[in-house]
């Protein structure tokens, strides 16, 4: 006690700054101790939670396997399956357990196909998990909404399409994207009807994802893409052009010809590329006639078309552009000339260097 009094007296005699330093040190020291205890407490709780979730995962995995292999011969739900569903119904009311169940189902859905996935879908519906996904899509938080749609997509729940339809034009991009993917995943080409109504842009990544899903469809019979080629939404037009190319839509050639004078330069360039792919030889005369009015990118695309669809009659046109201001066009013109008239191409080598184009000089040094 006396020692303690001496310490207090000594402390009182210290200059103000030293006193302050001691007080701050004491506070920080106490904080460190408190935080260490708190950290230990949090870690213990987290470990306990993890252990519980692992234990529940194991328990649930066993139940799931039992469920999958106890169906009736006719494909109906057996008594054992009904009991498992009833048991799981109790678990899904607890958020942490619901999370574990969903994650196990998700993982399995990614890895197996066929009759097992059908059984998983039935389980998802009957255990009430679908009900929680519907609560998610009604949430005000966009990320919860998007997650809910993703879940319904994964388990291919068709009965909620009217609800998802309302989210096709949601103000948040991620929600819209999930809604688009829902329709494409479930209905493939028929699910593309949302392209009729969307006014917001469809990003390049969204387009790639949709194309990838469409390629998984067993039915590769594509729907009519003409309305989308005339869409006011430029990204929809660009996507329709991708569809025309991937699915060889020769029947839209006339529409593509009209689109050579589209307002958007990007669309016009893409149209030339699609026509190249579809052997749109009719486009040659139109583009040749307007060549000087085309942008440089369109001119390059057109030379790409010529490279594939050239005939000997095109020689004067190609020759005329051997000295084009753009190096890429010079090079393409040389390449095309070589393919239709090798003698004339070789004759160009005899030109004096001062009369040669940059492409000719570069090729000489290759």
């Amino acid at each position, binding site marked *: 006690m006396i020692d303690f009094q001496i310490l207090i007296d000594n402390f009182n005699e210290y200059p103000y700054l030293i006193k302050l330093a001691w007080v701050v040190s004491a506070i920080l020291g106490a904080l460190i101790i408190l935080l260490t205890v708190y950290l230990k407490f949090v870690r213990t709780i987290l470990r306990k939670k993890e252990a519980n979730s692992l234990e529940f995962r194991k328990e649930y995995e066993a139940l799931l396997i039992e469920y999958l292999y106890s169906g009736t011969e006719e494909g109906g739900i057996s008594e054992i399956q009904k009991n498992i569903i009833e048991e799981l119904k109790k678990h899904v009311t607890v958020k942490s357990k619901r999370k574990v169940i969903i994650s196990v189902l998700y993982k399995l859905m990614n890895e197996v*196909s*066929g009759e*097992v996935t059908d059984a998983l879908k039935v389980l998802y519906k009957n255990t009430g998990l679908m009900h929680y996904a519907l609560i998610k899509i009604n949430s005000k938080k966009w990320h919860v909404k998007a997650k809910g749609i993703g879940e319904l997509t994964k388990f291919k729940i068709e009965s909620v399409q009217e609800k998802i339809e309302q989210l096709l034009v949601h103000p948040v991009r991620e929600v819209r994207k999930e809604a688009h993917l829902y329709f494409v995943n479930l209905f493939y080409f028929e699910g593309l009807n949302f392209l009729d109504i969307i006014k917001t842009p469809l990003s390049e990544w969204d387009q790639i994802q949709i194309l990838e899903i469409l390629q998984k469809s067993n039915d590769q019979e594509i729907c009519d893409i003409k309305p989308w080629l005339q869409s006011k939404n430029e990204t929809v037009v660009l996507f329709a052009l991708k569809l025309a190319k991937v699915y060889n839509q020769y029947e839209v050639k006339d529409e593509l010809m009209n689109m050579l004078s589209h307002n958007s330069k990007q669309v016009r360039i893409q149209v030339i590329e699609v026509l190249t792919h579809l052997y749109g030889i009719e486009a040659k005369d139109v583009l040749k006639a307007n060549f000087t009015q085309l942008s440089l990118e369109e001119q390059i695309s057109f030379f790409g078309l010529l490279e594939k669809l050239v005939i000997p009659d095109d020689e004067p046109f190609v020759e005329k552009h051997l000295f084009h201001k753009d190096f890429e066009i010079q090079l393409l013109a040389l390449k095309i000339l070589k393919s239709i008239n090798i003698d004339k191409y070789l004759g160009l080598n005899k030109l004096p260097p001062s009369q040669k184009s940059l492409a000719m000089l570069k090729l000489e040094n290759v």
Partner: protein
Amino acid sequence: MDRKKIVLAEDNSTLSLLLKFRLEKEGHELFMAADGKEALALIEEQLPDLIITDIMMPFISGLEVISHVRNKLELNVPIIVFSSAGQEEMVLKAFDLGANDFMGKPFSPNELVIRVKRQLN
């Protein structure tokens, strides 16, 4: 029917359990490994009649498992590999290393049973 020993190396515990149940129903004896390391230990210990392995696994990949079986243990046991979408190059490597068959995920367990039968016969 002969009870054949099968080592199944798969890090998705639910899928492992599902396949174990399915293949045991066919009369086989299953040894489960959650990663490549465990798989190698089981293979050396059990000398199985068939190995089924995923390509992407913790610690030691499916490719390393195949390489170890063919080059170090010099076993001719048939090997079936699982691969996910986008792992086409890995599948080619697996065949180069000596895999006998492959199944792309997602796959049907019934199809796996048929492939297992074919390899064991």
